[in-house]
């Protein structure tokens, strides 16, 4: 049989050769990062061109968003406004050029201020009257009525070449004034960026010379990639929690990695209640739901103590946030609310009925791990106050279709994010179904308040108006805030200076050094 074995070996060699030719024609070793090589490998969830975060590496915004959500200078260095917020004069930074050498001037700024707001949820476009170019570095912007949120919203305007965008809000020429230049790009796979050596903000000149942007769509794979050292950092280019909560404690325990959880920035996961029709049209049912959810329990169990429980719509860091949490967990009150509406458990199955009808909610959530876990949690939690939940986990598109058709009682929704005023402008005065459930424009007063806070420039007025808004929302319960999902990034421990940026979508690498 010895010959047989020899033949086998031969056979295997042949087969290995065959595999070799088809399989690996030149695996290269390029992992030799010397101590000085400042190349950052980023593991990202989305294609480079489709997310907003990556754009901030190439394009500057007109103003900066600061810690307290107020605005600071950037390409717009100074601004003056008149008393009733109808006219703004913007001073632009001089001598800034795009990476291809073209000049940034008032004409370019004007184009961008007119072009981007539609795609960036900026309310000012609805009031904009005219933009006047005074000189190369000065613009005068006039509005039809007063609009106080203008400067804040300029932080969302990217500066692109006027010829670099198409008619649909897509960037076609990725030439910007920002800290990096796009060198190579492969759809859905990767991008390579090199430092813009002529970046105008010399104080913000990044230490990282090259960025390897790798697209890893699966969140588990991203975690594995950072654990195995394939990438240097994950979670950096997403404005939401970009890894399973369950993995965070494990990652924190890993000595090779650093985990940063941002207490100040992130989004509040809010569920929408269909207040226009169905069982949730009943005010008491909505209240009962909001009060019947033990958010501490939720975050400590299915969210692994990573997310923070909250019943606020907006973080307290926001100047005009709710003064205190209103819809706190209270089982007795929740049950009482249901009883007020005549719901009682008459047949002893633990589910309350009214007129012989069981109280059943159709909960539609889009299919992500977190949504499914939270969905099961809510199903269990609401059962305790006697509400039966028919949980439907649907793919993203089907979810949107269902929500848009109003075919739900409770659903995943969009958080109150971005600048709060713009959000209000988008969904605060709307009472129709959209991709994220139903708007918060529950009554005429709410619509008026929305209008007022967007146009006023007076903080005092805003504060008063916001208090009224919070009162309406807390009483009406058009949505249920559940938890605060922080931005988290995980990086190799040899990377220093990673930080979160107040501007939700911004990636700031100015202080980052690889040791």
């Amino acid at each position, binding site marked *: 049989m010895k010959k047989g074995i020899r033949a086998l070996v031969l056979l295997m060699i042949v087969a290995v050769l065959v595999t070799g030719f088809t399989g690996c024609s030149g695996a290269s070793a390029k992992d030799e990062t010397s101590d000085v090589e400042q190349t950052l490998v980023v593991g990202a969830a989305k294609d480079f061109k489709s997310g907003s975060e990556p754009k901030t590496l190439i394009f500057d915004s007109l103003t900066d968003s600061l810690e307290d959500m107020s605005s600071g200078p950037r390409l717009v260095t100074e601004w003056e406004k008149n008393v009733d917020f109808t006219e703004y004069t913007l001073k632009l930074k001089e001598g800034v050029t795009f990476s291809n050498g073209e000049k940034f001037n008032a004409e370019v700024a004007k184009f961008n201020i007119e072009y981007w707001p539609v795609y960036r949820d900026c309310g000012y476009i609805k009031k904009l009257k005219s933009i006047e170019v005074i000189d190369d570095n000065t613009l005068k912007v006039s509005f039809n009525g007063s609009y106080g949120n203008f400067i804040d919203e300029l932080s969302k305007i990217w500066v692109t070449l006027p010829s670099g965008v198409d008619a649909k809000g897509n960037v076609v020429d990725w030439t910007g004034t920002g800290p990096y230049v796009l060198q190579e790009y492969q759809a859905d796979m990767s991008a390579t960026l090199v430092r813009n050596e002529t970046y105008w903000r010399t104080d913000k000149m990044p230490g990282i010379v090259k960025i390897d942007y790798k697209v890893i769509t699966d969140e*588990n794979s991203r975690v*594995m990639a950072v654990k195995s050292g394939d990438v240097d950092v994950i979670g950096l280019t997403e404005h939401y929690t970009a890894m399973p909560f369950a993995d965070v404690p*494990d990652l924190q325990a890993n000595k090779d990695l650093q985990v940063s959880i941002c207490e100040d920035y992130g989004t509040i996961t809010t569920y929408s209640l269909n207040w226009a029709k169905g069982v949730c049209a009943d005010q008491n049912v909505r209240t009962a739901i909001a009060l019947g959810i033990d958010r501490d*329990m939720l975050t400590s169990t299915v969210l692994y103590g990573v997310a923070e429980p909250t019943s606020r719509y907006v973080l307290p860091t926001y100047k005009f946030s709710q003064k205190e949490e209103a819809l706190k967990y209270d089982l007795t009150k929740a049950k009482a609310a249901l009883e007020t509406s005549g719901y009682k458990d008459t047949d002893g199955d633990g589910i309350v009925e009214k007129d012989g009808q069981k109280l059943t909610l159709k909960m539609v959530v889009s299919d992500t*791990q977190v949504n499914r876990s939270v969905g*099961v949690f809510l199903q269990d939690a609401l059962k305790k106050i006697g509400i039966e939940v028919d949980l439907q986990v649907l*793919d993203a598109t*089907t979810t949107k279709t269902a929500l848009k058709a109003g075919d739900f009682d409770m659903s995943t929704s969009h958080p109150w994010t971005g600048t709060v005023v713009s959000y209000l402008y988008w969904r605060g005065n709307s009472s129709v179904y959209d991709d994220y459930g139903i708007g918060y424009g529950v009554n005429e007063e709410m619509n008026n308040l929305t209008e007022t806070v967007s146009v006023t420039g007076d903080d005092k007025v805003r504060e008063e108006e916001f208090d009224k808004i919070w009162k309406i929302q807390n009483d009406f319960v058009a949505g249920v805030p559940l938890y605060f999902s922080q931005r988290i990034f995980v990086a190799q421990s040899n990377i220093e200076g990673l930080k979160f940026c107040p501007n939700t979508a911004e990636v700031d690498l100015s202080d980052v050094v690889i040791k």
Partner: protein
Amino acid sequence: MRKFKVKTKKQQKNLIWVWSGLLFILLTLIIFSPYIFPESNTINYSLQLQKPSILHWFGTDEFGRDLFSRVFNGMRTSLMYSLIIEAIALIIGLIIGLLSGYMGGKVDGFLNYIMNVFQAFPTTIAAIALIAVLGTGDTTLIIALSVMGWVAYARIVRSETLIFKERDFVLGARASGGSSAYILGKHIFPNVLLPILPLATLMIGHGIMAIASLSFLGFGVQPPNAEIGLMLKDSAMFINRAPWLLVGPGIVLAMVVALINALGDAIRDKMDPQKQMIEI
């Protein structure tokens, strides 16, 4: 001289008994799982993501539910759906195969052509496309897989029908003036049933796998229904934190399918010991 040991008939028989016994135990656990494991849906957060232990053989999931009992619940759905799918596919395959084989000529040509077209699409992809049309859901999953599954049956039924069509008893029945429907129903149908039995058994395993794959991709069974593919999808989410969650469901799935396949092979060998059929 090489050393070897030929299993005697008795040993082989014993082995079949062992398999059948194992399969029987598993099937009992699966079919009666709601009664054997009534607590499988009870949430207990204090037992989140536990490692396998004496109490929880496969560990616990993120809601502290015992994975062992949930696996059998999940397999129950898989098995039930697979059986429904195979029943539908079998009926369609029987009708088309009988027609195709018996009628011959243009009808056969056309039906054969249809079978070829159906086989041009890989099952998973075609099923996903159909699910896209019909919308995600359990019913559509069953429809999609049935629509793709009948071809295998139709092919075998057709070739068997072709053989039986020329047999004396069929020719005799035809000569004595029996109608086509009568001959098909009374003479050919009972005879083609037996040859498709091994295939039908094997296809149950295939069905379970297909359902699991589609559910894993998110096109199959929808939560909160428990299904093995869906469960693996959930477990996969914890691959970093609790990799053991993948082991239990995987083992049970593989065991059930392997045993069903072994049963199918045994039936095939029993019926036709000469033919070492290579199923494709």
